[in-house]
């Protein structure tokens, strides 16, 4: 249910409260997933004219799970605070005195409901941590992480239900990995209406048994980080070592991620530097058809050699300068049998990552001069005008 539909059906007096939930509602570590509202119902008689919905189900991402809490208002008494049903967690009973936004409920404050949900979630986290006491091994994992300020404050725990057959107890740890992702290249999502949110890397470690013999880690990255690193499969984290513990494993993953990110950032800056350095030339030469002004990954030049015009597409890879750029030569006169412009891709040409920008430009130019005659012959031979 989209936020607009939700807000349209909700009782007008409750609309401001819900608006902040569906539009700005991000709770917990996973800020990429918003709070969702479904199952809008009413507590009024069926003869009451709408919109009069005053109770709904709120989906809250938490520790890799989705909590489904029922929130019950009364449209006839919108000033009253809501009631909650915590779904399958029937034993979760928060302490009301530790919910200040409930004790001093202010229906006029649009943020009141969102704040109350956050407070409830905090208590839910405590409740789940308490449940870890059923396994000393997992409790140890939790306590050791809690002591580390890097991870202790950004941790969500979901203690699963015991398997009634095997009696096994399982748990999931969701940790927000500390790191500086501020210099990650900006990534625009396809749906520009959705705010991609803060850049975050989350490590989820699932313990399928209380003795930590079956442990499954997984890394979740926000869209911009994932894109910057080259996709979801670009970064492979190591498997959880047998007999290992989280306090050793998590920093290891964190280090790996940060290294990768830094590498990517460096590559980006290098590319950017290369482009900026040559911007005057690029601009004045008038040979530049186009170039990626944000990611600095692509450059297209229109060159001429002895009255033979051709295009050169320069693709700077993600890990430039470590990885060699790809040069694609394209004829402006000749077509292939499939109707495309005749082109040749060159990946192996003299190159060294240790060259600076000027050297790279100079060497590229020399290479063009040596390769173009060959390209021209090929174009005439294999292409058609």
């Amino acid at each position, binding site marked *: 249910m989209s936020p607009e539909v939700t807000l349209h059906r909700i009782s007008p007096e409750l609309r401001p409260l819900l608006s902040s939930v569906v539009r700005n509602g991000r709770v917990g570590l996973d800020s990429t997933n918003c709070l969702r509202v479904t199952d809008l*119902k*009413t*507590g*009024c*008689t*069926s003869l*009451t004219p709408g919109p009069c919905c005053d*109770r709904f189900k709120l989906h809250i991402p938490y520790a890799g799970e989705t909590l489904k809490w*029922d929130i*019950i208002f*009364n*449209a*006839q*008494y919108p000033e*009253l*605070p809501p*009631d*909650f*049903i*915590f779904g399958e967690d*029937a*034993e979760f*009973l*928060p302490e*009301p*005195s530790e*919910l200040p936004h*409930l*004790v*001093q*409920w202010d229906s006029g404050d649009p943020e009141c409901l969102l704040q109350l949900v956050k407070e409830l979630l905090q208590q839910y986290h405590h409740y789940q941590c308490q449940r870890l006491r059923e396994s000393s091994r997992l409790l140890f994992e939790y306590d050791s992480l809690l002591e580390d300020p890097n991870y202790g404050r950004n941790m969500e725990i979901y203690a699963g239900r015991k398997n009634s057959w095997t009696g096994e107890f399982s748990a999931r740890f969701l940790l927000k990995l500390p790191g500086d992702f501020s210099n990650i290249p900006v990534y625009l999502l396809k749906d520009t209406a959705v705010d991609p949110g803060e850049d975050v890397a989350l490590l989820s470690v699932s313990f399928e048994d209380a003795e930590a013999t079956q442990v499954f880690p997984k890394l979740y990255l926000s869209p911009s980080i994932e894109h910057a690193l080259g996709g979801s499969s670009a970064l492979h984290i190591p498997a959880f070592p047998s007999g290992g513990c989280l306090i050793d494993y998590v920093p290891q993953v964190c280090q790996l991620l940060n290294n990768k990110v830094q590498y990517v950032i460096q590559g980006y800056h290098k590319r950017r530097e290369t482009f900026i350095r040559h911007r005057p030339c690029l601009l004045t030469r008038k040979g530049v058809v186009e170039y990626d002004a944000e990611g600095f990954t692509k450059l297209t030049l229109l060159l001429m050699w002895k009255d033979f015009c051709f295009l050169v597409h320069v693709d700077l890879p993600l890990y430039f300068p470590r990885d060699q750029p790809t040069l694609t030569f394209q004829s402006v006169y000749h077509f292939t049998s499939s109707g495309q412009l005749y082109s040749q891709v060159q990946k192996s040409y003299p190159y060294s990552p240790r060259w600076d920008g000027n050297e790279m430009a100079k060497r590229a130019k020399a290479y063009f001069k040596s390769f173009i005659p060959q390209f021209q012959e090929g174009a005439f031979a294999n292409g058609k005008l």
Partner: protein
Amino acid sequence: MAASISGYTFSSVCYHSANSNSDHEGFLLGDVRQEETVSISDTQISTAESVQVVEIHNHDPCAKLFSFYDYAGKLNEENLNSILKDRRKNVIGWYRFRRNTQQQMSFREQIIHKQLTELLGVPDLVFLLFSFISTANSSTHALEYVLFRPHHSRYNQRITLTIPNLGNTSQQEYKVSSVPNTSINYTQVIKEHGAEFFDKDGVMKDIRTIYQVYSALQDKLQAVCGEVEQSERVKENIQEDVNKLKQQIALRKRKTAEEERRLLEAQNADSHPTPEENTEPSDASPLSRIAFQTPSAPERPSTSPNPPSYSDLLAQGDSLPSSSSPTTSAALLPRPQAVGSPGHPITPYLGNGDGSSSDSLDRQAAGQEDDDDEEDEDEDEDEDSSEYENLVSEAGHLPMVSTSGLAQGRPAALGPDGDARGSQAT
């Protein structure tokens, strides 16, 4: 643990809830009693099963939400007392109605329930949750209700709630509720008019009267039983006397018949048989032969002065020559008759339901003995002739029997038309 709610309380809560435009809550009043069932079976001596039964008699709705608790769910005892007043001791639970929600205790309900249990001092306080679930197009509305009995921080324990007499009472017993009638008006009316119907012990007067009638009837019945017993004994004695007399009569007859036979034999042996003398028997013989061609039934001794009894006839039948014994034995046996048919019943048992124990055949024989001298017996004879038609037709081809030994003791022979007199030759 079991629970029941009276029909009127349930319907009243539903009515309140259905007409409420928001969530609605109130208190449940009633009693908690312990029921112990002792059952005895073949496998064990006895089993005692103890069940706690919660009976909901009434409800007390709250005027609005949050009337006795604050936003955090903390109870306000003062407000609670002002709502409940003197009914506080009767509170056994509370209820809540909320539309389109899950059948599960909510966060605030659990907080309130915990405090109510402590404050009211009811360890097994119950919580009744009503909910209307409506379909999207409002075509169907389902009223759902669940009774919770939270126990030791477990808020999802449910108990079955029954509504007495909500069902097919034509097949089930209509249960009288044990709910005490707390209506003041009812008490006043009964007090005012009760004396006309109830005696000083609180028992309805009519019941006593009926019981007295019953007792009197029982006494009378006992007396009649005694009288019947006495009369039966007297009758039994009389019957014995009658049987003895009959035996004597039969004996006498036998003796008489024997003597006559001897005399006859003696006469025949002494005198020479003359034609004239032989004409009589020869004249008589065709007649008697004719008579014998239509065999007679043993129950027709009307022409002889002392018609033989049934047992006598049976004895005769046994003593007759073998050539005739099948005939007479067949003739002696009466045709069975259905009950209620005209004529004399021929039941083989003693007693025919009216207290008399006489054998029907004896009775018949006795009746015929009594009517021996009467001339107008045609009706009886006709009735009897209808009984013995079969015997007559069956025995129509029977061989001739010598008349000498049978002339005297031969019962009346019947023709097919029932003309017994005419066939009688003696």
